[in-house]
């Protein structure tokens, strides 16, 4: 009897369920759950209307200390000592500054050495911690799930709701385990892993789910790479991605500015978070790391992706009419022809950066490729570090010199040409190898064509002027390729 009672009280739970349960303020019958939010990140684009509405409705910010802001989306990546030339962009950044001052919210402003893309600075500062709930008016908030935090993007009305109440009304999402076993082959990065999974799931396949990435291939990834994987969870339509915290997570966080003071006690708590043996996910997908090759998107959504050794697909070979139409429209927009090898695609521009691939490991991987080479004649290539600390670390390591000597532009931190809200953008018809997260029509500039790739693949494309299989790359200057499992220095 006693034994059966024990079994009845212990119900194995997933990582997601544990975080969810810990944050339930109120489960109103037949309504959404009121969920407590531990951290809200704010940037200039999706917040002004939230603050304005707070003023109109006479609400205060309930917990200003649980919100942190930085401008990143439309900041220039050129000389920071100059004012922002675009009047409307400048006004938006000024508005963020004024709102933060009025409501008592900490802001990492343009001149701040810690400024950067919101999803890069949260982890760098140690604000992002296992077991937390984290939101931001930005879909790539999923990045923070790499620490075992439940993190997802919200709209501006919800930004206001969190400011006013420090809670959100949520329907409980379903859970999907994405298990990848084995070692990623040489030359295959976390970005390739993410793109491969999105290709398998399709860009809507994760809708309604929180994805938990598990398996030996995921466990062996460094924090930077885990962030790349969770960052892209939204591109499969999922609300968020999760990776269970482990020693790699704790090592990354130890000694960061906002890490818990009693760090060892925190680690003891965090060790309780990983999914229990026997816990059940709503859905499970299994992949083998050995099957994954370097990836290149050919279409206008991230699910339209293939291995670099493949050819542009024939839409007529597609089964469903919807997909056929979408593929044909994408190929037309991208000005490609079915059947041509992806390695024959010539590019005009290269963008290395973004919340997906703007961290130090990404820059190291790209620098290793370009070292000793020159960017192809007609290619314009730029590197935009994800944050001030990433930029300084890269400069300490001499990566900026490698990039500059190879013919890359070395810029100030921000979102830059991932979404081209600032002056960094493609001209109509230009084709770009980009380490960012979205290849939507016009995403990097009206009429621009985007192919999503890993940092190493983007770097190699810059040198050759077309896509190449990074597994065949001849690394010069004795710089070895960065393997997925390499350890990282703290930045």
């Amino acid at each position: 009897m006693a034994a059966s009672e024990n079994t009845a009280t212990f119900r194995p739970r997933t990582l997601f369920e544990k975080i969810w349960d810990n944050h339930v303020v109120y489960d109103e019958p037949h309504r959404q759950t009121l969920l407590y939010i531990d951290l809200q990140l704010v940037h200039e684009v999706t917040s002004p209307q939230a603050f304005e509405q707070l003023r109109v409705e006479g609400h205060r910010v309930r917990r200003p200390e649980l919100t942190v802001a930085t401008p990143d989306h439309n900041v220039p990546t050129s000389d920071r000592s100059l004012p922002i030339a675009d009047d409307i962009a400048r006004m938006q950044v000024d508005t963020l500054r004024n709102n933060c001052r009025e409501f008592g919210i900490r802001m990492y402003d343009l001149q701040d050495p810690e400024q950067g893309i919101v999803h890069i600075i949260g982890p760098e500062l140690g604000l992002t911690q296992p077991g937390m709930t984290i939101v931001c008016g930005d879909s790539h908030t999923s990045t923070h799930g790499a620490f075992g935090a439940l993190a997802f993007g919200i709209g501006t009305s919800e930004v206001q709701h969190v400011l006013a109440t420090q809670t959100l009304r949520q329907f409980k999402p379903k859970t999907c385990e994405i298990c990848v076993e084995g070692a990623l082959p040489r030359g295959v990065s976390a970005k390739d892993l993410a793109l491969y999974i999105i290709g398998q799931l399709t860009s809507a396949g994760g809708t309604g789910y929180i994805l938990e990435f598990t398996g030996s291939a995921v466990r062996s990834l460094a924090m930077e790479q885990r962030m790349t994987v969770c960052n892209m969870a939204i591109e499969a339509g999922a609300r968020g991605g999760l990776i269970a915290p482990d020693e790699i997570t704790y090592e990354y966080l130890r000694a960061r500015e906002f890490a818990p003071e009693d760090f060892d006690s925190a680690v003891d708590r965090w060790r309780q978070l990983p999914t229990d043996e026997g816990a059940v996910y709503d859905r499970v997908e299994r992949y083998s790391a050995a099957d994954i090759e370097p990836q290149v998107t050919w279409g206008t959504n991230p699910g339209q992706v293939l291995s670099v050794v493949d050819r542009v697909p024939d839409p007529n070979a597609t089964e469903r009419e919807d997909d056929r139409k979408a593929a044909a429209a994408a190929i037309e927009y991208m000005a490609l022809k079915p059947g041509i090898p992806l390695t024959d695609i010539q590019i005009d521009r290269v963008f290395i950066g973004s919340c997906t691939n703007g961290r130090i490991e990404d820059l190291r991987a790209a620098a290793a490729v370009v070292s000793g080479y020159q960017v192809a004649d007609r290619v314009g290539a730029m590197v935009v570090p994800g944050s001030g600390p990433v930029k300084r670390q890269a400069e300490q390591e001499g990566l900026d010199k490698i990039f500059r000597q190879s013919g890359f532009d070395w810029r100030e931190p921000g979102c830059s040409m991932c979404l081209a809200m600032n002056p960094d953008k493609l001209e109509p018809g230009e084709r770009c190898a980009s380490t960012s997260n979205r290849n939507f029509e016009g995403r990097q500039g009206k009429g621009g064509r985007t192919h999503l790739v890993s940092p190493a693949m983007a770097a190699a494309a810059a040198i050759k002027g077309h896509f190449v299989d990074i597994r065949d790359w001849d690394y010069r200057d004795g710089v070895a390729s960065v393997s997925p499992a390499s350890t990282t220095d703290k930045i």
Partner: protein
Amino acid sequence: MRAFTQHTGLVAAMDRSNVDTDQIIPKQFLKRIERTGFGAFLFFDWRFLEDGTPNPEFELNHPDLEGASILLTRQNFGCGSSREHAPWALDDYGFRVLIGPSFADIFYNNCFQNGLLPIVLEAAVIDDLFARVNTYPGYTLSVQLAENRILDDHGLDRSFEIDPFRKHCLLNGLDNIALTLEHADRIADYEAARGMAALSESGGPN
């Protein structure tokens, strides 16, 4: 929030899947700090030619669709960025109802914050609706939210599913923050249980 009870309107068909929020409202318009006036920029890059004149090829520019207020779409409408500017632009343009086989999560949620009703129907029903738009010029639909029904003048009468609480909020135009603040005590209790400092009289942190 504006309440939604019922709506009858002209249907515009957009036979495209995975329409992302970058298309619905391109980024160059996200620098504005207002939440109104985005309708002029809806689908901007598809809707207008380089010289700023309407693109005659774009479906919503068809003269017969002037005043359309129901948008019929394909799967995964609203994918991508979390920008609430997307529903703001659709609403400001005049859309009140969106109908499709699926919507992206964040976008779907954002619609309800703005009195915009996204209706999910199975793919076969969506196919039928596209066929009806092609068959009947000036095709209109009537949406009765209280009964979860859509009807047309040609015999169509379908029910749709919607979360009862979301429906309740739409029907009554309820404000989410006001609803949540009814539970301010529970929030305070939760914070206390977590060992967080209580809020001061003035409402700020101690």
